[in-house]
């Protein structure tokens, strides 16, 4: 980030690579990570239009078939096409995590800005509360809620958003404190700019790159959390497929030697997390000028 | 002087590998240093002087290698040694002091441990003996109240004191050769003079052969026995110090002497010479100094400069300045 005041970034902030110093093509990490993730997204949402076998159609005489031309990913314990289940399973696995991280981003941004712009004693109280929240890992909190209320896709999105914002809030707050000391903010204050105006005009824009980086990591974390939760049977419930749930099912059937029921969902989760980590790390390197 | 020099470097050539090609970084450097004698290796930053020293120590950075030549320490051909054998010579036969004393010591070890670490490993000293040896070394390099300061950490010392400690580290195993790579550049003027005086005293007392690397000719005028000027990886002038300072013959040497910086800022730009040294990956043909040389003629750009002069003052130049009669 240069010292120069950030420029206007319009309504599609994700398309503004200028904030990261431009030339994102020169970032092999970002480009390759993004490519892999987009392939996974296409697999989940476009795949079912190309491979039209139903993920719910049961074939009792075709159980545990290894991968073949008709069933490229084999069939499961009920003879369902595993490729179809993998495609449909991608939608909640990725979608819930992406939307959930948007929720987390909004809460974290608001909380962090509020904390950073508040008087120091309010800031202190809010930060201690964050410490307490951060002591509870996302997955543990989600298990807690899953034990009390049954979770559907919508409640998963809301809860994942509600439990995964504190990390972002802390980063935003630290950035706010740093930016408060910057010359142009001090200058604006001299001219009598109000806190709310400052937040909108300067901080929000200055915050944008770091928020995008952390949102990327948050999506990866939520994919992992959701997959873990579904793996444990506490997330997305069968018969709706999800990658975590499919992997959990596959692991219960490992004794049958059906490796494809383990390998494909595991690889999908791994690739999703890996690709987003690469994007986030690439952007972070860019921000830190490495 | 004895006929058998402590250091003898012959036709040293160091190359870098980049993208499958090799580039010469240091070419055809030869010199000898006798016991109790000081050779000043002079040049701008990037001329290959530090790499020459690194080659002598066997500490070339990764990606660089000695392509040809010969290095003898006390008569022993070190390039013929296995890496582990060569490593054992470091510290025992050749010690080294580097530019930045602030970074040269490990920040998280008390200094006495660092001073005698190599001696402990070499001679198997026990703790009291090692502490005694550390005290002796620190006193020899002039650290005041050395007995009280053995357990101090590097950050508790000033820059000049740290350089003294670094010299003590280098001398721990009584090496007979000392490589000093810009040891005073990072220090203020008064401290510079003190450190130089200390090095000179140690050289005379212990008969050290010193390779002193600097970009500042004025520093070594008083102490050097020989001067070797490098430019862009090549020797341009090599002479006895008295002759050299009486009259350097290479235009670059003259420029260096004319451009002696008044303030000791590290890696100072030589403003009296137009332009910058060439990039090692893209050396010009002919004389490498030609693009910046005030006395350049056409032949300089096409032919390598021939050696001119004798053993006592040799210069590689098409149009050297005349020798001053001594």
């Amino acid at each position: 980030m240069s010292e120069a005041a950030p420029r206007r970034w319009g309504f599609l902030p994700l398309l503004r690579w200028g904030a990261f110093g431009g030339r994102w093509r020169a970032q092999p990490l970002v480009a390759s990570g993004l490519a892999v993730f987009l392939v996974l997204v296409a697999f989940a949402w476009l795949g079912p239009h190309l491979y039209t076998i139903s993920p719910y159609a049961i074939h009792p005489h075709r159980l545990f078939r290894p991968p073949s031309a008709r069933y490229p990913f084999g069939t499961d314990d009920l003879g369902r096409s595993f490729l179809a289940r993998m495609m449909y399973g991608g939608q909640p696995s990725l979608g819930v995590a992406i939307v959930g991280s948007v929720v987390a981003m909004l809460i974290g941004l608001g909380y962090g800005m509020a904390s950073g712009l508040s008087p120091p004693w309010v800031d202190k109280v809010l930060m201690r509360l964050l410490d307490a929240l951060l002591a509870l890992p996302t997955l543990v909190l989600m298990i807690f809620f899953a034990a009390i209320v049954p979770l559907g896709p919508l409640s998963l999105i809301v809860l994942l958003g509600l439990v995964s914002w504190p990390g972002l809030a802390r980063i935003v707050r630290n950035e706010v404190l740093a930016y408060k000391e910057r010359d142009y903010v001090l200058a604006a204050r001299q001219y009598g700019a109000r806190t709310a105006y400052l937040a909108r005009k300067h901080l929000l824009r200055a915050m944008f790159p770091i928020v995008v980086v952390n949102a990327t990591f948050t999506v990866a974390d939520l994919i992992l959390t959701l997959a873990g939760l579904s793996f444990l049977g506490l997330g997305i419930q069968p018969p709706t497929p999800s990658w975590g749930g499919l992997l959990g099912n596959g692991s219960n059937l490992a004794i049958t030697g059906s490796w494809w029921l383990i390998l494909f969902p595991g690889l999908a989760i791994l690739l999703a997390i890996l690709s987003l980590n690469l994007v986030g790390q690439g952007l972070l390197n860019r921000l830190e000028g490495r | 002087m004895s006929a058998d020099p402590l250091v003898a470097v012959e036709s040293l050539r160091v190359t870098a590998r980049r993208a499958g090609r090799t580039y010469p970084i240091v070419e055809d450097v030869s010199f000898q240093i006798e016991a109790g004698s000081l050779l000043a290796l002079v040049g701008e930053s990037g001329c290959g002087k530090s790499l020459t020293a690194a080659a002598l120590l066997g500490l070339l950075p990764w990606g660089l290698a000695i392509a040809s030549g010969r290095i003898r320490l006390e008569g022993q051909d070190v390039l013929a040694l296995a890496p582990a054998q060569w490593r054992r010579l470091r510290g025992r036969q050749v010690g080294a002091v580097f530019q930045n004393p602030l970074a040269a010591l490990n920040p998280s070890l008390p200094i006495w441990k660092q001073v005698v670490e190599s001696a402990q490993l070499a001679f198997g000293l026990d703790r009291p003996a090692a502490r005694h040896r550390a005290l002796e070394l620190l006193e020899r390099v002039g650290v005041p109240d050395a007995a009280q300061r053995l357990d101090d950490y590097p950050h508790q010392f000033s820059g000049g004191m740290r350089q003294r400690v670094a010299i003590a580290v280098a001398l721990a195993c009584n090496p007979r050769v000392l490589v000093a790579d810009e040891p005073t550049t990072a220090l203020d003027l008064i401290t510079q003079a003190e450190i130089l005086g200390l090095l000179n005293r140690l050289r005379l007392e212990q008969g050290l052969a010193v390779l002193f690397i600097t970009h500042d000719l004025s520093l070594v005028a008083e102490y050097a026995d020989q001067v070797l000027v490098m430019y862009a990886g090549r020797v341009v002038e090599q002479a006895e110090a008295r002759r050299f300072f009486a009259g350097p013959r290479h235009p670059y040497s003259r420029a260096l002497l004319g451009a002696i910086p008044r303030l000791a800022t590290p890696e100072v730009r030589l403003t009296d010479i137009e332009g910058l040294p060439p990039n090692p990956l893209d050396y010009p043909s002919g004389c490498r100094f030609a693009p910046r040389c005030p006395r350049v003629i056409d032949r300089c750009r096409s032919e390598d400069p021939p050696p001119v002069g004798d053993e006592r003052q040799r210069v590689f130049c098409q149009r050297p300045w005349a020798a001053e009669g001594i």
Partner: protein
Amino acid sequence: MWAMIVRRLSVSAISLALLVTLVFFMIHATPGGPAYSILGSHASPQAVAALNRQMGLDRPLPEQYLIWWAHLLEGRLGYSYIQHVEVSHLIGVYLERTLILDLAALGLAIAVAIGVGLLQGYLAERIGGRIIGFFQIVFYAMPVFFTGILLIYAFSMQLDWLPPGGVGHTLAGHARHLVLPVLTLALPIAAGFSRYFGHQAREEYRQDYVRTARARGLCEWRIATHHVLRNAVRPFITLVGMMIPVLFVGGVLTESVFNYPGLGWLLWRSALDQDYPTVSAITLIIGVLTILGNLIADLLNSMLDVRVRYE
């Protein structure tokens, strides 16, 4: 120094108090209250009311809050209506198993990370260093439940070398049962640690004191162990503190994959049984352990920092 310790302790105390409060509100924020989760959603209103009265849930919230605190300070974490025991009786033995697994994995991860990180720092941009870097990124992203199943599939199902889960009865049996879970849990942590530590080590290898050490004839092994390690290892302690949540999350999943009856496994089973007193007690314990872990890391770090400081 002491002032710093007192300040740090008070910060942790505040965090702990807030954590306890938070868990209290999380329990009481459930729609219909805890009684519904115990009796199921089809329970009659009379049964719910009776249970509420029995558990003291009909009292005003502030009073319940004080009772909650009083019970905690007595060491009573609640009563499991599913297992019909005090939760605190359950926790002890499960916690011990979890600590064994987590500490073994942490120790293995640290040992591997130090070795790999030093090697990576030494190799720097060389091809070997890049290969290490690639595997670190991949293993760090590897979900433990995927690693776990792959290991079970390979070493238990196909090769039949090690048990796929559970615990042993003899010491040797116990160790055999621990091998795969420890490897599984240690893998992503070792990857994360070694990536960070490798970066630190690389920075240290660039320092002049390494060159000075080489110039006085020290061997690479001694430079790595006596010089680089000493300087690179300090931020490491903070990192261990930061990795504690990762350890617990990984622990929950690893214990579930391997049916290893530790705290995480108990959390999972209790969640499936909707045994909310047990779940909330374990949640609280994990939070407390995390805060304590961070506290210890911070204190250790500042003690080391007082002794030596960079410029």
